[in-house]
């Protein structure tokens, strides 16, 4: 029984890592431009679909990867240029709704280009239990999930360092704080935003590939991406470690609730549990675990 609990817990934590990856993309863009990019999920979907589509057309893994990365970067730059720049002075709610529209656009485009069939994505890592762990402790932990967690950890560490140690990272933080001030100090706003969207595109690609390999590349992926929202609420919108912690919590609690509470109420809790959890959390702490308290002066 205990080992089953741990199995579910670890499985949940690892799937939480996946949520974190999607949330990372959100955090990057929000941190640097103050835009809440609802379309991040569809970017993940688009990346995965493009990669699979390219490999189906005969490109090798490596070439397809590079090509998809290039596509994502170009897409990010286009989004910044065509959607965000014209809306730069509008209230945040307008930008948010524009990204909702963007998400629909990208989903339609992705399916238009590559078709709507479910595809498998092969990454070469097997989704099977780690043998010695299941032999010794009776716990089944998927090799794949562990590798995904490792990749996510590397990504997070890298991004964290990037933001806090490099000059560009500092510029990004300045831009997120105050556009006008950043401009006044000579930070090239457009370039910075271009960089941010490119990095977010890269993160979306990694997330897309991992998710796609795990669950198959299909439209339902965009719903998975919606789950990143409760992650952001728990972890705060601006914190990279927060995205990870939030993801872990959401992933773990979601699975635990489904397995242990689900049978009492007919199952299917996974669909709403993270949102209700986030809602309850917001009532107590509106800025999230890692977010900053907002003081409004009049």
């Amino acid at each position, binding site marked *: 029984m205990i080992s089953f609990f741990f199995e579910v817990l670890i499985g949940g934590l690892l799937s939480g890592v996946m949520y974190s990856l999607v949330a990372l993309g959100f955090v990057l863009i929000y941190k640097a431009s103050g835009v809440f990019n609802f379309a991040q999920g569809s970017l993940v979907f688009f990346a995965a679909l493009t990669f699979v589509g390219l490999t189906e057309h005969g490109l090798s893994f490596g070439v397809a990867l590079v090509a998809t990365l290039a596509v994502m970067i170009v897409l990010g730059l286009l989004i910044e240029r065509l959607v965000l720049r014209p809306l730069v002075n509008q209230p945040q709610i307008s930008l948010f709704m524009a990204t909702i529209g963007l998400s629909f656009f990208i989903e*339609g485009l992705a399916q238009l280009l590559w078709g709507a069939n479910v595809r498998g994505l092969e990454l070469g890592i097997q989704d099977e239990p780690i043998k010695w762990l299941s032999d010794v402790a009776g716990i089944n932990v998927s090799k794949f999930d562990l590798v995904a967690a490792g990749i996510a950890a590397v990504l997070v560490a890298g991004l964290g360092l990037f933001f806090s140690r490099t000059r560009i990272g500092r510029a990004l933080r300045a831009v997120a704080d105050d556009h006008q001030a950043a401009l006044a100090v000579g930070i090239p706003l457009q370039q910075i935003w271009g960089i941010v969207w490119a990095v977010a595109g890269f993160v979306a690609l990694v997330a897309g590939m991992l998710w796609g390999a795990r669950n198959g590349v299909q439209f339902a992926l965009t719903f998975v991406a919606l789950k990143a929202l409760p992650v952001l609420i728990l972890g705060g919108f601006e914190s990279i470690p927060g995205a990870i912690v939030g993801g872990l919590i959401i992933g773990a609690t979601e699975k635990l609730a489904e397995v242990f509470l689900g049978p009492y109420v007919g199952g299917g809790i996974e669909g709403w549990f993270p949102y209700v959890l986030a809602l309850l959390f*917001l009532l107590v702490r509106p800025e999230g675990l890692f977010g900053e308290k907002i003081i409004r002066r009049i």
Partner: protein
Amino acid sequence: MLYREAGQFKSTYAADAAILPIRQDRIGLALILVVAFVVIPLTATPYLFSAILIPCLILALAALGLNILTGYAGQLSLGTAAFMAVGAFASYNFLLRIPGIPLLLAFAGGGVMAAAVGILFGLPSLRIRGFYLAVATLAAQFFILWFLTKVGWVTNYNSSGVITARGMVIAGYAFDSPQEKYLLVLTIVTLLALAAKNMTRGNIGRQWMAIRDMDVAAEVIGIRPVRAKLLAFAVSSFYCGVAGALYAYAYLGTVEPEAYNLDLSFRILFMIIIGGIGTILGAFLGSAFIVVMPIVLTIVVHFLDDTLHLSVASSVASNVELMVFGGLIIFFLIVEPHGLARIWQITKEKLRLWPFPH
């Protein structure tokens, strides 16, 4: 030349405060009402009623509800469809369990139930704002739909999950034909739209807009944000609830949770963005746009298919539809954030001057 206001003086505040102070507007509205209530029922085809007019009116009602909440009171909601579902299922249960209950009362009861649920899920808005609130409404959307699917009592333990909506009968008269359904829906929607217009012009409307624009200042002048916000949720959900009941009984013919999914919530949000946030007219313009657009697209695709022999798959049309919707949202937000309603207003202002340029 046609649209001159000159010579129309208002000598009382009552006249100035009227919904349509300009005589030409009143004539215009009278014409629209005549067309809507008389001409269309006599001339339109059943297809027009069932596929366009009825859903357009019903969704406009839901859009009105969302506009009250998001456009006037500034509380972003992504759970509109869930409140519609509550209205539909509540109406179903009233009709089922209270024999002989009048149809309209059942619908109103559905609206009231939706309002109650709306207040419940609106409580977080007292602490949370902006897109945090949007996520909270997502919780409502997913939870409510799960609840309506899982809890047997609500669906009367129906095994298939799809309940057939019985026909609409008021005082012995059955509203069966598309024409009759259309007239019933039109009447209900018109009355509720009038009520909405009155509310938004009055004190409660100003309270809502004050909360939306600067709630700290609103508090300082004595408005109670708690009451105003919860009232916005209640009224908005009532409208969505009635719309949901009509959606089931006058349009779909079934009462099922899947019809009220997240996709519908987004469509209604798109309606008010394109139509014009914070306007009553916008709900109708947006609804017409969103309902008619897919049909137009399908026609265009078929036309291209036939003339250019492209043999376009049907999935292409639906994907293009997604892209067009998404693109139009972005387009409107960039070019005219106040939507079609503002474009209409600008047109009227140009008409005032016509044929003079300025």
